């Protein structure tokens, strides 16, 4: 199991639509100070619902929308999608319902014009439901089984905002998403994403806080 790609639309310092393909194994992300490296990790946390706004260095969620894209009186939004490749998932057949969609692009890309507020964007039939009896639904694509999580944050004219999670284009709640993520061993309090400054935070923590980390794990 690995992340196959991250797509960012107007997320922090990213513009229109940027797709970052990823491979299994060891990838380094490098570049000058302030160029947007940490923003990619923030996008992962945002999309998978692994952290609140503070953990993404934003005072409020709307601060995550690219500031060239936000302006008063207009609706603005940011969309981030993370596609997983589940082909080598241990116990694939028990955990996953495999669905062959022809053609594969039937999972609509959630670009800003086509998203309908809160209703599942893909009406073509039940087979692309988000979840099947608690199982993940993987969509075939060139021989691999893919699972796509999307999160959209929308701010309306009056400045109110709402965020929605989708699996393979279908609306889900945050709780449903987390239940599915646990099958891939991705947990909100897991230490699999170590942010800039976490090492210093652990060093400066008092002994009680450090012990509480193990409590959470138990």
């Amino acid at each position, binding site marked *: *199991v*690995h*992340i196959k790609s991250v797509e960012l639309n107007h997320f*922090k*310092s*990213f*513009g*229109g639509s*940027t797709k*970052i*393909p*990823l*491979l*299994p*194994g*060891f*990838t*380094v*992300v*490098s*570049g*000058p100070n*302030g*160029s*947007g*490296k*940490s*923003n*990619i*990790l923030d996008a*992962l946390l945002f999309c998978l619902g692994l952290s609140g706004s503070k953990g993404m260095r934003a005072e409020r969620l709307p601060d995550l929308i*690219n500031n*060239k894209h936000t302006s008063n009186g207009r609706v603005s939004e940011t969309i981030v999608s993370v596609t*997983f490749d589940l082909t080598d998932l241990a116990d694939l057949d028990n955990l996953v319902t495999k669905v062959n969609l022809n053609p594969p692009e039937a999972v609509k890309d959630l670009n800003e014009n086509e998203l309908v507020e809160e209703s599942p964007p893909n009406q073509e039939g039940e087979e692309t439901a988000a979840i099947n009896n608690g199982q993940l639904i993987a969509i075939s694509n060139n021989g691999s089984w893919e699972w796509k999580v999307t999160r959209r944050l929308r701010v309306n004219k009056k400045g109110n905002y709402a965020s929605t999670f989708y699996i393979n284009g279908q609306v889900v709640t945050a709780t449903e998403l987390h239940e599915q993520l646990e099958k*891939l*061993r*991705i*947990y909100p309090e*897991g*230490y*699999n*994403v*170590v*942010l*800039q400054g*976490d*090492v*210093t935070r*652990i*060093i400066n923590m*008092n*002994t*009680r806080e*450090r*012990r509480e*980390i*193990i*409590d959470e*794990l*138990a």
Partner: protein
Amino acid sequence: RLRAFKEAYDAVNQNFQAIFAELSDGDGHLQLEDENDPFNGGLNLVAHPKGKPVQRLSSMSGGEKSLTALSFIFSLQKYRPSSFYAFDEVDMFLDGANVARLSKMVKQQAQEAQFIVVSLRRPMIEASERTIGVTQARGAHTQVLGIKL
């Protein structure tokens, strides 16, 4: 609750000893302030970098502290392995030799899980399988470069 904690603690402690020895070829272990009633106290990271007496985190150097903290993070991850890991500049306090040691460990672990590591340090970039470049020209959006798949 106590049993669940003890089980997690013993496993993480074992992981910590193995990982700290690999990262800094010294000895380290976890130490509860109150062995009998862990919830009554906190947790110390005790380590002696190679050839030095045992010391608490507070009297170590910047680099030694960060190697100890990193070993602790990795030992938590080993207890609950995941399918992908993302690290953001965890190597910034380390000297060249320690960055090389850390990058070797990541390379080895990357055979079982996906690692996405943000780093500015040369030994880390050299040990990886591929590098994604990120840049932002004046006033423009972030561009992602060099993704040769």
